[in-house]
């Protein structure tokens, strides 16, 4: 039993307390400035462990992973983060999700680096999926 607890504590530490969030991103127009801006915002988030972002025309799709022990207020964290991002990119249509599935899908898009048309389609599908309730 002791062993179990110590192992789970270690895992929680590893999963929960690594200092800075890892960020991956993809800018369709390859605007490094914008990417850096976003990364600095994320770096200041203490409760986020991972983040991904895709810039596409005036759309900005961001997914975040909230640290396990902060997940109780996941909804709030996501909302306040969205506001922050919106204030930095006022001319972008910002979409933020903290869902694991959405972030997996977004990471796939980032990895693929596909052409514009395909990315557009995939991003639309992603946002529709995120809005499903049941």
């Amino acid at each position: 039993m002791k062993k179990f607890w110590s192992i789970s504590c270690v895992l929680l530490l590893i999963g929960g307390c690594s200092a800075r969030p890892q960020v991956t991103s993809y800018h369709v127009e390859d605007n490094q400035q914008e990417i850096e801006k976003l990364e600095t915002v994320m770096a200041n988030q203490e409760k986020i462990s991972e983040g991904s972002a895709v810039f596409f025309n005036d759309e900005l799709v961001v997914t975040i992973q909230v640290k396990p022990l902060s997940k109780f207020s996941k909804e709030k964290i996501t909302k306040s983060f969205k506001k922050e991002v919106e204030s930095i990119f006022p001319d972008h249509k910002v979409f933020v999700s903290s869902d694991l599935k959405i972030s997996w899908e977004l990471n796939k898009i980032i990895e693929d680096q596909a052409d514009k048309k395909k990315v557009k389609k995939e991003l639309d599908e992603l946002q529709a999926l995120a809005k499903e309730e049941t």
Partner: protein
Amino acid sequence: MISTIIIAFVVGGLVCVVGQLLFDVAKLTPAHTLSLMVVIGSVLDGFGLYEPFIDFAGAGATVPIMSFGNSLTHGAMAEAEKHGLIGVLTGMFEVTSSGISAAIVFGVIAALIFKSKGKVS
């Protein structure tokens, strides 16, 4: 991911300990205990606490029967938000019924294939 599974394990386990205490200390029958837990889930959702609980514990919150009360209440409230008082009645089964429908379907299938065996546990 592993941390999520561990949290689900710990939280789900603790919810079951509460159930066990209702069995052993409060001397409730299983039917009483489960009914009570469903009501607790429903009330927690009324205070808006169950959804954050699901965000936190994942399956640790959705697998225990309490989540059943939560989703019924959630459906009723979501519908009430849109259509006012009448939505309370109509929205109840909107969000969930997967537990009930699965139980019914698999119950009939089980009745078709299985026979009970009086083996000692």
